[in-house]
């Protein structure tokens, strides 16, 4: 139902405004930036799907350690390859926009951090999360001992039912008390 023709239809625009947290200018800007990534032939096709590599050239996503996970989470493609249509892109921007609610943000944050897509954050997920946050170089990584200590501290804090994993409700409980989650979980074009 999305279109990648050079202009967005007016009724489509107002529908998108209803369905997302974005304002009209933001949707038009998103459309423009999305169209810039298309090649000439793709511009005429409706519903083009952009492969992940091209999305990752956007400066807003380029330096983000979670960029691949973000694309994978918001992608609706059958092959789970992280490709995004324009509507997926709008979904992404809406969830990361300034006016999105805490619930939406925490829901998507949970899915982004769930590296193995099993519905909970277990030791493996948390370990990969820490490694993402500490950068790729060796001298900034934590040692195994520190990693163990860190993850056990985290589980102690957030795992309420003590099953060794953090599920969505526990995650949302922790996140909702944080003062700077909403302001840091933001991407603006």
């Amino acid at each position, binding site marked *: *139902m*999305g279109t990648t023709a050079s202009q967005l239809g007016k009724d489509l625009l107002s*529908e998108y405004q*209803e*369905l997302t947290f974005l*304002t009209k200018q933001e949707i038009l800007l998103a459309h423009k930036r999305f169209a810039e990534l298309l090649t000439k032939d793709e511009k005429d096709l409706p519903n083009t799907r952009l492969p992940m590599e091209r999305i990752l050239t956007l*400066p*807003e996503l380029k*330096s*983000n*350690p979670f960029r691949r996970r973000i694309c994978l989470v918001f992608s609706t493609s059958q092959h789970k390859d992280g490709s995004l249509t324009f*509507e*997926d892109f709008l*979904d992404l921007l809406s*969830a*990361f926009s300034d006016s999105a*609610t805490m*619930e*939406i943000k925490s*829901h*998507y*944050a949970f899915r982004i951090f769930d590296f193995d897509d*099993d*519905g909970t954050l277990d030791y493996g997920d948390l370990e990969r*999360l*820490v490694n993402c*946050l*500490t*950068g790729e170089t060796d001298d*900034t*990584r*934590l040692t195994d001992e*520190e990693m163990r*200590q*860190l993850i056990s*501290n*985290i589980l102690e*804090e*957030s795992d*309420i*039912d*003590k*099953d*060794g*994993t953090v*599920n*969505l*409700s*526990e*995650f949302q*409980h*922790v996140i909702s*008390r*944080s*003062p700077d*989650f909403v302001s*840091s*979980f933001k*991407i*603006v074009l």
Partner: protein
Amino acid sequence: MCDLMMMSSSDSNSDSEEEESLSEGEMAQLLEEVEEKKKLIATIRNKPWRMKRRLVDLKEAQEFVDKFEGALGKGKGRKWFAYKVMMKKKWIKFQRDFENFRTACIPWERKIKDVESHFGSSVASYFIFLRWMYGMNLVLFGFTFGLVVIPEVLMGLPYGSIPRKTVPTPDQDTAQDYSVLMDFNGYCKYSVLFYGYYNNQRTIGLLKFRLPLSYLMVGIGTFGYSLMVVIRTMAKNADVGGGDGDEGEFTFAWKMFTSWDYLIGNSETADNKYASITTSFKESIVDEQENQKDENIHLRRFLRVMANFLITCSLGGSGYLIYFVVKRSQEFANRTDLSWYEKNELELIMSLLGLVCPPLFETIAELEDYHPRIALKWQLGRIFALFLGNLYTFLFALFDEVNTKLEQEDSIKNASIWAMKEYYANYTLMLNGTDSPIPPMDPGDVIRGPCWETAVGIEFVKLTVSDIQVSYLTILIGDFARAVIVRFLNYCWCWDLEAGFPSYGEFDISGNVLGLVFNQGMIWMGAFYAPGLVGINVLRLLSSMYYQCWAVMATNVPHERVFKASKSNNFYMGLLLLILFLSLLPVVFTIMTLPPSFDCGPFSGKVKMFDVIMETIDLDLPAFLGTLFSYAANPGLIIPAVLLMVLAIYYLNSVSEAYQHANMELKKKMQMTRDEEKNRRNNTDSTNQVMKDLEDLLPNRSLMPPAPPPQPVKKPEPEAKPTKTRPGTAGKGVNLQRDVTLASPNPNARGPVSRPPGPRGHGPPPGAGPGRGRGRGRGAPPR
């Protein structure tokens, strides 16, 4: 919902005459359904669904609403309704745009983000505090400037027209000299900067602006506004941060889940952020471990007592030094041949004390060997005591000076009144009985009183200015020169200057914040006597922002270990509040007790400064308001009001404690039920004593079923979907069901236990043992 759709479709088939025949019940149901659909439309963006599904749902809901809204409203009502809806949408959009605009207006956002990405949030918090102070001072400046200075300049008498606005004739030659101006004498003293310039005319100009009243009101309003702003900010911080009580909660989880800033788009900044996140992880791990350390208690206690003794001595010493210097400055006041040092001795000594003592305290505090966070709190407390002692000693010394000036004033007042009376007597003697005009004397020649308010104002302004100079010089020498030396001398020095002794400085957050807080305290104290002081402070904060941002980025390195004094900013806000009260006291005291000077300032001629209010009530306001105020000021009314407020505070305090208590209880309960459930799954033996006792009481213990066959279907389902129910409630529901089944086993349901427990085909494979946790989401149970 299906039947309603059917009903609605059947309705749509029938014609409009059917509409009137809708019964009450059907109308209500339809109304409810429409409301539900409208709610869905409003919240559809909150649902974490994919766009396609949302589009489909949205279209369906919109069609439904459009079709049946008309059925509910009648013709004209529909237009009005549509208008209302449109206005509401426009209002929401307007609000959003306004919020965007407001956030875009906040200054220095980029600068602070830069500092944050390089130095972390604690250094950035100082700059955020500085910006907040700047905002508050800007508002105060607006009040003072707009309501006091501008009216006097525009509508009052110009310079040189009356004695209080003119430089006395003997001083006029030197009035423009730079050294005189730097001392805030000469033209500075007789300008809008100070109290003495303002005229005491009751109303000025065409608009009949009441300047003395406005002066008093602005002075009091300054404190009122500052109080309101500080308390509002404290409340907001307490709301969000959870206050000091929650210090340990979720530190690690937050660091993990919320520390990345998704707005970073620059790879260098990202690298910085990685480094800072790593440091913060490492430091918080160490922080946890620091709590386990054992040592020699007695030695520590002795060392701590000695350290406290030393520090009390130095505090006492600094207080005495200030007293001594003030006494000396009073002697100097009588001499005229003073060197620059002697003239500014007081301010210099005070600023230097504020510079030298904190590092001294820090060195002495090494003896105490506290955890860094606690040591920081002690350090802050001591610096606070130092500044407070200094400030109040200064005030007492100043008060002595004021008293001396008041005595002087009495004699001069009498002399000038006598001279005036003589003049009028001579005049009437010479020109029998005509009305005598004002004596034709040059305003510069009139005898002047000492005008103690202006003197106090000058002292505060000098103190502030020297404080600014000292702090800027310190940054220049202590940070910049040090960095230059370390950088360039390193090439030709024996040891590595950068890694070893001097190296680059770290940004002293607590020292700077305290300096800011005390500076604000001085401004609050001095603003009543020197309206220009607020303007000077605004300029100071503005330049300080740019200067310190530059200094931090160019000459400082990030801290090795970062410990904030408290999680929220409320610690510093609390200090600010305390300083506000402490600076309110002297000002209110002087307004209430000391008589204003007889020949300068807006209250000259009155017995007490607040007589202006009485005068206004008598002359300007209608009579009944006057009687109303006199009733309201009755102690019999005020004391019960105060008691009521105290009771309200006590009540609110106990309510908040009760909430916290309930919170803890709920958490414990949640944990207990989860523990129970888990134990039930793993082994039949309950670890909870209560449950154990309960089981012992059961009559048919033998009939209890064996280890419950794995029933994983109950668990993973509710958790995978995003639910908004609290985890506790879901768990409790499940648990209660289990309790019921176990507590009252129905033998008939399973049949008599006539055969041994069947082969554990459904149970865990032999050897797996109960250690194989059936955690949620771990996939299929072992089969």
